[in-house]
Structure formats: structure tokens, C-alpha cells
């Protein structure tokens, strides 16, 4: 029996279908998306590594698949990709932790 689930790897290849009900918006998005990842002040390889890290931060399985392959194609190796994921993880961890200051402010404000 086919069991539908929320994430299907084949759906990545169907990304373009999101444009079916908003072709103009999707055209703008994909053009902009392509331009973002072109060689510029940052190389295409560096941009791909950033994308890989962000994919982990937003925990998007499609992006993780796509940018694991893209990072290799763009010339990164597994050492560089692993460090990029650690950067994402460090920012995520740090972002939680730094809110501890807010917690302390609040707690101190209402405590005797």
C-alpha cells in the first residue's frame, strides 16, 4: 500500500510546480534564485556552502539533499561541508542560549 508521508525525495524534482498558480511570482523567484547563486563577491562554491548550512538551520530535507550534492559539485569536500554544518549548529545553539539573558532579565524582574 502506498503510504503518503510529508517528505518525498521525488518532490524536489517537482519544485517548479509551485509556479502553476502564480507563474509571474515564481518566474521572479527562480530568476532571483539563480542570480543569487552565481559567482560574485562570493564564489559559487562559498554560496553553496552557506546554502548547505542554512538548509540545516531551517532543517529542510530537500535543501539538504540538493546542497549536499551541489556543494560537492561546486568543489567543496566533506571536511568543509561538515564545518559548515557546525557553523549552522553553533548559531542555532547560540541563538537559544543568548535568549537566556532575556530569561534572566525577566526572572530577575519578577523575583525578590
Amino acid at each position, binding site marked *: 500500500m502506498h503510504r503518503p508521508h510529508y517528505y518525498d525525495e521525488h518532490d524536489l524534482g517537482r519544485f517548479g510546480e509551485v509556479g502553476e498558480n502564480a507563474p509571474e511570482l515564481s518566474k521572479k523567484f527562480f530568476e532571483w534564485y539563480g542570480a543569487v547563486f552565481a559567482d560574485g563577491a562570493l*564564489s*559559487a*562554491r562559498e554560496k553553496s556552502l552557506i546554502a548547505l548550512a542554512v538548509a540545516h538551520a531551517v532543517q529542510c530535507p530537500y535543501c539538504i539533499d540538493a546542497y549536499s550534492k551541489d556543494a560537492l559539485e561546486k568543489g567543496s569536500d*566533506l571536511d568543509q561541508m561538515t564545518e559548515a554544518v557546525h557553523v549552522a549548529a553553533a548559531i542555532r545553539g547560540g541563538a537559544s542560549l543568548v535568549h537566556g539573558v532575556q530569561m534572566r532579565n525577566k526572572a530577575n524582574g519578577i523575583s525578590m
Partner: protein
Amino acid sequence: MSSPKSLPTLRARGAPLASPDAQRALLRSLPIAREFEDALGGPLRATRIDVMQINVGKLCNQTCRHCHVDAGPDRREVMSRETMQLCLDALARTDIPTVDITGGAPELTPHFRWLVEQVRALGRHVIDRCNLTILETPTHRDLPEFFAENRVEVVCSLPHYARLSTDRQRGDGVHERSIRALRRLNEVGYGDGRSGLRLVLVTNPVGAFLPGAQASLETEWKREMKQRHGVSFDALYTITNMPISRYLEWLESSGNLQRYLDALVAAFNPAAARGVMCRSTISIGWDGTLYDCDFNQMLEMPVHASAPRHVRDFDRGLLEARTIELDRHCFGCTAGAGSSCGGATT
């Protein structure tokens, strides 16, 4: 993480894919969106011969996991001096400007240096396809000087500027030895941009994916090779892995074969198709047989029967008018930016 161990050659293991027929049959057994000739829109014809590529043999000091030659230390097929002389005779009858010597590790073939000197004596440009580690073996340590004296263009394989990927594809310790060899090539003047001693690096993907954009990678590689290793070079070529021989075996055993072939077919680029290297190259095997390219050579698909099939019968006119022999592996030359022995073709 240590690198996966290199396996012996397909031949030494008695692997079914040691047979070129088995390789082609495996590729042909897969469902595919369209055949290569349909993608091209008809047959492919040669245009001219700018490069005589001589594969002097399958003997190699390495056993890289992706090798399309199934080369290795156990292989005994090497070109005799007599066959080299036939290549030289054919060359002397033409003005083909470039001789591209490949293998295996071509430098291990007994009469390699003699061949280089004879080609130079005919006033032609020589390219040596070098695996770098051969320069670190006791019997070949003087090759940088030999190359420089003969103004040989050295085209070297290095999958990545960092150790990990190089060693995974080519074996533990290969990266370090390759860097040492590159430094010695730099020391005799290679890659300085002034001496005219041209040093090219070749990278091909360590896995089932296509290479990145050549120009973008070259900029980054030049910076990284200089900063990390103090090495300079002139150009970087990106080459797509062909689904044949040991790479084909790896694709199949790792479950990547169908997806990789689909990716090559989907990335078919008509501009790359116009620039495929077989149109301007003739490839000669260790026994003197003529092929359209080194890949067809490994698949034992000689040139079309309307052209001479052995170097002793070399006829430039007939060869330049030949129809190229094609099969599904050809999608490797036309994917994305295209791929050839000179890197991307678009």
C-alpha cells in the same frame, strides 16, 4: 576517516566488468530517456585531426577507484618501440601539431622517453598525462627535469586541493606525494606563467555527480593551492567521470548507476556535443589500433570500418572523413559544460 582501500584491477579480480562487452551491455540494459544519436539528431562526423593521443599502456603504479582504463601494477599491455615508430612515421607524414601521451602511467612504459624525444625532434608539441606520484618513485625522480628539457606540457590528475577527496579516490598518501611532485615541477619552472612550461591540473568528481564550473573552480584552486601548498599552476580542467570500467563498477555497486546515467542524459548540452574531442582527435592504443577517443579504446570500439584501423595504415584523409562510433557512455562528454581531455568544452 581513512580512505576506502583501492581494489585490484577488474582484470586481476576476474570481475565480469573487466570485459568491455559486459560494460556496454550493462549500460544498454538500463532504461533511458533517449539514445545518444537521437539526442544529437544524427550521426557524428570527424572534422580534422589536431591531436594524436597515444595510450602507451595500461601499466600504472596506482589503482584509482574511478579509473576508466582499469590500469594498475598487474597490467602488462605496453606499447612496443616498433609500434611507437609506426606512430612517429604517421606523424611525420602529417602536420598534426600535438601528441598527447597517456596511459596508465605512461612514464612506466619502457620507451616513453625515447618517444617524447622523437616527437619533439619532429617539432610537435607533447602533452604528458601524469598521475604525479610516479614522479616520487626512485626510478622516475628526474622526470621534472626531463619534461622541462623537452618542453613537455604536463597535465596532472588531482581530484581536490585538500587531502580527503584525493586520497579517497586515489589511495592513502597520494595527496601528499602529489603535492611534493607538484612542488618539484614548480622548482624547474613549471606553472610560473613565464617559462612557457605549462602545468595543468585535472579534477574529476569523487563520486556520482558532475563537475562544477571550470572557470569558477580554477580561480579558487589557484588561491588554495598557493595558500595551502605553495604550488602554482597554469590551468584547471574539470572532467566528467565516464560510466565505464572501474567507475562503472563503483556506480553499480553503490546503487548510483541509474541516477548517474539519468543525470548525464538530462544534462545533454547541444553546444557541448558540437565540441566533443573525438571530432578533432585520433586515439591510438598500445597495440597500434585506432580509436575515436580513449573511452572508445577502453570499450574496444575501433574507428569506423571505412577508415584504416591500425596506425601502420594511417591515412589522415580517410580518418578525417570518418563517422564516429557512439554509444551510451558518450553522454559523459556532453553533460553540462561538456567534458574532454582538455576539460570543459563550452
